[in-house]
């Protein structure tokens, strides 16, 4: 059994969180609140040491006063709490939105739209290998039929009905794959905790 007090604390907090499986209880709530508090406290400390110190405090001490501009813009966020001057908060929001939109929109269109459309298009080169060709056709049919399913400005009857029904099948297959993966993910987290409890803490797993 491990002698490290931190491991013991970790073990008791883990048991506290897992106790929710039996039923809601104060031990669980204490652990949950402690986790949220510690996570936020940790985030503040890391932000101070890894962001504010190297990017603001040290440059200011070194005589670089340009960093005062982003500092002032950032501080404007706090005017959210002053009703008469709360409009000033729009300035940092505008800067953040402008920067992220300007950078993101062209890149996202390129990566998420154009490249994905290219990936769906069937071209002769794909049929050099029959497996690759089969998957390309399947992806083409799957994408088209799924898009048809989400085409709601027309009633799904006539030709639209079987195509959108095929779309539902593809969507269900997708959901099934996602669910299977989700089960695996949740079990992996449980495995991690049990490895900690029965290995690191109790020493029963070598």
């Amino acid at each position: 059994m491990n002698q490290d007090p931190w491991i013991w604390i970790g073990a008791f907090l883990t048991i506290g969180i897992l106790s929710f499986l039996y039923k809601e209880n104060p031990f669980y709530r204490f652990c949950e609140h402690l986790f949220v508090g510690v996570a936020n406290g940790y985030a503040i400390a890391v932000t101070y040491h890894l962001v504010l110190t190297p990017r603001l405090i040290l440059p200011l001490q070194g005589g670089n006063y340009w960093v005062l501009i982003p500092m002032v813009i950032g501080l404007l966020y706090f005017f959210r709490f002053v009703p008469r001057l709360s409009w000033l908060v729009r300035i940092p929001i505008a800067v953040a939105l402008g920067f992220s939109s300007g950078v993101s929109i062209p890149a996202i269109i390129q990566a998420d739209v154009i490249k994905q459309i290219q990936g769906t298009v069937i071209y002769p080169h794909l049929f050099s290998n029959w497996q690759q060709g089969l998957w390309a056709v399947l992806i083409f049919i799957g994408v088209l039929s799924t898009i048809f399913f989400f085409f709601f400005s027309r009633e799904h009857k006539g030709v639209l009905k079987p195509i959108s029904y095929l779309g539902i099948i593809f969507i269900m297959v997708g959901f099934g794959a996602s669910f299977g993966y989700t089960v695996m993910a949740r079990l992996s987290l449980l495995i991690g905790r049990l490895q900690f409890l029965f290995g690191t803490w109790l020493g029963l797993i070598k």
Partner: protein
Amino acid sequence: MKFWEYLLRIDRRIVFLLVGLSVLIPLLFPFRIKTNVMPYTQKLFDVIETIDPENQGILISADYDPQTMPELHPMFIALLRHAFARRIPVLVMTSYIQGPGLAQQGLNQVTEEFNARAQTNQDSILYGRDYVFLGYPPLWLAAVLRMGSDISQAFPADYYKNRTASLEMMKKIKNYNDIGVIISIAGSAIPQSWVIYANTRFGVRVGSGATAVTAPDFYPFLQTGQMCGMIAGLKGASEYEYLVSTKYNLTGATPATRGMGSQSIAHLMILLLVIIGNIGYFATRRKK
């Protein structure tokens, strides 16, 4: 017929207990399962195999936090082992505020493991020569874009407050041209953002280590070649551990591989419960 009705009303706590036991017992009494390596795990492994350590390094972005650690931390360890075994320079960063501690822990573990076997200075894994930990950048997007032109401008100081440009390894690695592959290990959509901002814009290869929940989101990027490989979930991590340990004969903790017995038995238990539930449902419905 009462039996079937009972099956439909099993207390959820009994289900939790059964699943818990099916996870715990294989951990206490482990058994080996044959590892079938999935194509995308193999692809990522092959990409790292093709990197020339003299000319290029790899960037591992540990974009995860304690919530997803059981799945993702083994991937980080396995990737570090692979890179160090091939003597590929490794840059590590994190885009999650809770990530630096985990990344540092992983780096310490693997460097200690390699240095315990080292005979000479050349065999050892040294900070600044073999790897650099860049830490957590404010405004991640700006850092990613800036690294395309100059990494030491995006990170003027490393995690340990050394001047990045002064480190021996950073004299060889200036920007994405000197990075063979970026691997983002994340439980969120961060790898997709790496594709958007690093791959699309700068052409650098991007791979991912994903939790099983997020892995299906990345298949479209793998299919189009925007991602060069993926380690998916605990199974992917165990596959990568297997590839690295068999090729380089490395010994060391393999938590993902150890967890696969539990994963398999627990999946069988869930399948069994689903089948029993369905039989109960159809049996009672026929009666009505």
